[in-house]
């Protein structure tokens, strides 16, 4: 009996297009769309280096130094003047033109650029200036008075997409669990299924448990599928291992409970679905699914610290980052409080009696 009941509940979830949408399509759309942006690579600036005739040896040294620079894409031409350079920029042939001409005492390098972005242009201008200086010093032959070396402290910095991966998976679990379960339960109530079940000798809690556990099983499949997809797209979530899956499913319990609470407290199917959206949509942003929450005002930060998704995402990201599950105890503690509290409230909120 339990097997058949669970099977039927599972079919009800899997055959419901709305549930499938929230479980898979919705988070996958986010994964796909965010993947299209390449946040991590700054586009190279194209630079035309023009010499009045075939490059002289010092000019060639400068050209080589510029070509070695990562953020520049250098092409060399011969014999552009200022007007031709401006026209080339106007026609989008290049972001900038460096006119290198022989003057009385040596070489003159004049940069003409059309970069509108003030930060980008000062970065490029300063970069080129420092390369020119470096070449000057090198050509002068003397040893540099100060050698400038930079070193990034976090050599293994996580990319933005690695930040997004756990965020989108957590968001997907939350929206599916809360919206789909709340919608299913209110539909069962509205269509008379709950009443019909009550007219059979089946203990109502068995029916209820079968519906909730069917959603939990779908959530397990969901987190595995989304983790594989996110990992394939480069979010590296599989490095979170089995604990990643377990923490994600544990957090889903909270969102299932919230779904039960909403279905119990709000009357009418449309209103329940609206309420479920109203709960999950702000939470997905406030808990930092897509962007770090550090820049939010202090008052909102307090709210952020209370939300269960915040702690679930922190734990998931830390696991992806290679931290151990034991180190996540503060997040797991908050999640456990949420699991227990939301379960008690869910028990009080939803009664099969009034259907």
């Amino acid at each position, binding site marked *: 009996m339990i097997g058949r009941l669970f099977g*039927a509940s599972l079919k009800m979830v899997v055959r419901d297009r709305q549930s499938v949408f929230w479980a898979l399509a919705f988070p996958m759309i986010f994964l796909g769309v965010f993947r299209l942006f390449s946040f991590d690579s700054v586009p190279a600036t194209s630079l035309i280096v023009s010499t009045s005739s075939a490059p002289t040896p010092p000019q060639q040294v400068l050209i080589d130094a510029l070509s070695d620079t990562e953020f520049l894409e250098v092409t060399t031409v011969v014999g552009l003047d200022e007007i031709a350079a401006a026209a080339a920029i106007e026609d989008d042939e290049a972001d900038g033109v460096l006119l290198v001409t022989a003057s009385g005492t040596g070489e003159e390098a004049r940069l003409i650029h059309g970069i509108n972005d003030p930060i980008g242009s000062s970065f490029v201008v300063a970069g080129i200036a420092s390369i020119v200086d470096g070449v000057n010093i090198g050509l002068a032959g003397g040893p540099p008075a100060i050698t400038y070396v930079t070193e990034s402290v976090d050599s293994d910095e996580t990319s933005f997409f690695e930040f997004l991966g756990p965020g989108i998976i957590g968001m997907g679990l939350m929206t599916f669990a809360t919206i789909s379960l709340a919608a299913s339960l209110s539909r069962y109530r509205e*269509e*008379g299924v709950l*009443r019909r079940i*009550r*007219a*059979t000798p089946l203990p109502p809690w068995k029916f209820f448990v079968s519906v909730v556990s069917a959603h939990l099983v779908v959530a397990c499949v969901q987190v595995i599928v989304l983790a594989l997809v996110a990992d394939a797209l480069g979010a590296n979530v599989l490095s979170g291992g089995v604990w990643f899956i377990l923490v994600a499913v544990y957090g889903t319990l909270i969102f299932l409970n919230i779904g039960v609470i909403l279905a119990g407290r709000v009357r009418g199917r449309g209103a329940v679905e609206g309420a479920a959206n109203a709960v999950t949509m702000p939470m997905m942003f406030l808990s930092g699914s897509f962007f770090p929450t550090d820049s939010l005002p202090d008052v909102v930060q307090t709210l952020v610290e209370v939300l269960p998704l915040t702690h679930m995402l922190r734990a998931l990201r830390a696991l992806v980052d290679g931290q151990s599950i034991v180190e996540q105890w503060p997040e797991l503690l908050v999640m456990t409080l949420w699991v227990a509290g939301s379960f008690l409230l869910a028990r009080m909120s939803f009664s099969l009696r009034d259907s």
Partner: protein
Amino acid sequence: MTVTASVIDAHGLVKRYDDLLALKEVSFTVQPGEIFGILGPNGAGKTTLVEILEGLTTPTEGTASVLGIEVTRHPVEVKARIGVQLQASSYHQYLTLREILELFGSFYPRHADPMELLRTVHLEDRANDRIKQLSGGMQQRFSIVAALVNQPDLVFFDEPTAGLDPDARRDLWDIVRGVRDSGATVVMTTHYMEEAESLCDRVAFMNAGEIAALDTPSGLVRRLNAPYRVRVTTSEPLDEVPLRSLAGVSEVTQTQTADGYVAELRASDAPRIAAAVASLATNRAALVHDLVILPATLEDVFLAVTGRGLHG
């Protein structure tokens, strides 16, 4: 008939919801093999009464024994042996007919084969369809058969033919009779008087939380003050005052139709009153086109119960 043999034995059932008294001391019995109808206007207490008998609601006072089991004390045992059909869809929209019957069958210790059940209501070809793909009549037929998954000894039907066309309704009547003939007792609510008249062995009329009348359909009609209708069609309108003053006439309505003037009287003694009406017409030099004596129906009982009270 002995009390212990009754399929249903309700005694002094009272149901109070806050300020509302939904049932006031309802007592009745239903015998094995009966098709028992519960009729009455909306809000009369039909649903509350049926829900108590189905073990879905507990009465504030009173007792009800269903199939010999005290339903308030052992609702699960009662639920295992009864069948319940509810209005509206009431079934999982994403499961096929067969899957629903298998699922509901699994709730009971004793259950029938789903395909066999579907055959009895001519839905075997639709076993893999879902509820939404069925016509209204098919949905009703399915909801009836879904109440039979546990081969129940007692079945409750809630307005089984609501919203159906006359053909589909007659189909369903045959199915309900078939259920009874297979050995089950049937309790049904309905809003259709001709349905109760044609299907039910006995009918209980409910009004304002009480059973206002309970008898066979013809018994109820006989107990009316005026068990006949006399309808006379004349070329000229009749004077209503002498019509009303005829002994045994309780209600007069007169309308003009394409056939002439139609006067309708509710009458206790049809032949004498018909003769008196005919002579009134002759006095007014009106031609009598047509004169019919009709027996009263459950419709008249319904009006009497809900409107003017019932005598006898």
